């Protein structure tokens, strides 16, 4: 299984600012994903990060709010732009070897917007 590292693990941010979360995988992977999770609740897919092309966003999530980069097969970033308290959440990076394959997750980045 892939080992996934996320940075930062935790941050407190001022409303109106933007924060970029980094996700590093210890091996080349086909697919990378970004999920959001309220504490104690389930995961909601934000987008699939595609290497060499724009990310594929889920309904309710837009590129202007959550720009994503995927410069190579081991790295991706998610930016949470113009943050508001409603963006306070855990953001999780996942990776898999391909469509329908097991997704492994990083430890998450816990953002609190004040």
């Amino acid at each position: 299984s892939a080992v996934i590292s996320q940075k930062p693990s935790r941050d407190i941010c001022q409303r109106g600012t933007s924060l970029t979360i980094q996700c590093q995988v210890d091996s080349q992977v086909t697919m990378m994903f970004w999920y959001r999770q309220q504490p104690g609740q389930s995961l909601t897919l934000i987008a699939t990060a595609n290497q060499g092309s724009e990310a594929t966003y889920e309904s309710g999530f837009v590129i202007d709010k959550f720009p994503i980069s995927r410069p190579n097969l081991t790295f991706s970033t998610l930016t949470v732009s113009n943050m508001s308290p409603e963006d306070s959440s855990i953001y999780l990076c996942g990776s898999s070897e391909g469509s329908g394959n097991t997704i492994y997750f990083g430890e998450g980045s816990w953002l609190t917007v004040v």
Partner: protein
Amino acid sequence: TQLLEQSPQFLSIQEGENLTVYCNSSSVFSSLQWYRQEPGEGPVLLVTVVTGGEVKKLKRLTFQFGDARKDSSLHITAAQPGDTGLYLCAAFETSGSRLTFGEGTQLTVNP
């Protein structure tokens, strides 16, 4: 979107008790996965079930995939405080590209 319904949402039991968590859907899945998540950590894969009627055991945890591949259950025998966590079922949608999660079951095992 293929909805996964988990029950119960919350479960608080005493050490040594048995419990079962259910994951149901009206859709048929090619496979279904169970994850466990502890506070401050990402979800960790416990098992993947693929064949209808399949039963998999992981120490005190028993996972079953329904015959019609629409539902699954997780049974824990003699629960321990270390079993405390959020249990999530998940399945890929028909296209195979999107992993959808159930609402989760927050389990607390009291010493």
